[in-house]
């Protein structure tokens, strides 16, 4: 099949600029989530040399 020839479904696809925009937004959100929550959480779970953090977070 010739990939340059759009099939019937091609007309229903999002325009290229919109797909690129969505991809960029997803990447930006992922970076923010990773650096704001995921990496600090991983660091705390694997690298915290102090005591009592878990104790303080335990429901009273």
């Amino acid at each position, binding site marked *: 099949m010739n990939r340059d020839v759009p099939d019937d479904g091609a007309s229903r696809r999002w325009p290229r600029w919109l797909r690129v925009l969505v991809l960029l937004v997803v990447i930006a959100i992922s970076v923010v989530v990773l650096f704001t929550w995921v990496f600090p959480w991983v660091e705390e779970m694997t*690298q915290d040399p102090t*005591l*009592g953090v878990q104790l303080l977070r335990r429901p009273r």
Partner: protein
Amino acid sequence: MTRVVRGVGWVLVVSGAVVLLYVVYLLWFTGLETQRAQRELAETWSLTVPDAPVQADQPSDPADEVDDEQIALGDAVAALWFERDGERIVSDEMLFVVSGATLQLLRSGPGHYPLSDRPGGAGNLAIAGHRTTYGAPFWAVDVLTEGDTIHVVDRQGREWVYAYREQRIVAPTDVWVIGEDPLGSGAPTITLTTCHPRGSAAQRLIVWGELVGDPIESTATGTSPQEIAGRVEG
């Protein structure tokens, strides 16, 4: 269907790459940040701490006394090293201990639990340090054995020597280890806390030493181990 499989494949590949890069950053590049911070602390230390140390067990000039409350978070409160038969062990470099023990502050080096005692104090001087990452200042702290000494210089230039006593692996919730008298000996104590096993925070490795010589008055303000453990930000 093929597009979905291809999309999931790409997501997995990118996720794997991100995790890999993060691990590489943690293991090798965080040390650069700590090295830079320790260099800056050393420069500040050399400008503010007297070169000629005063006799450790003698009271220094009150005018030279630095009120612990005045030490800003992240500033150096002490310098620390370890010796065996006069040779330095654990770390080749002198470690500058910062005020505060949050993960952010520990990026600069070992951190002093703010409510624990000061160096040379009659209570318990508690210090936390990374076992891996951020320069791993306490990577080899488990090599300490009977006869080894822990040396601490305070901001007045007084050198305090603690004789190694014991080490123990405890749960992260065992805050009693940084209480006023964790060994029950009544002697002034130093407590070092770090991760165990290496690369995991599942447990804590605790190292204790006892002060050699007479202590000075305690300035510890934590009334319980829970309070000391909970106030890592000063």
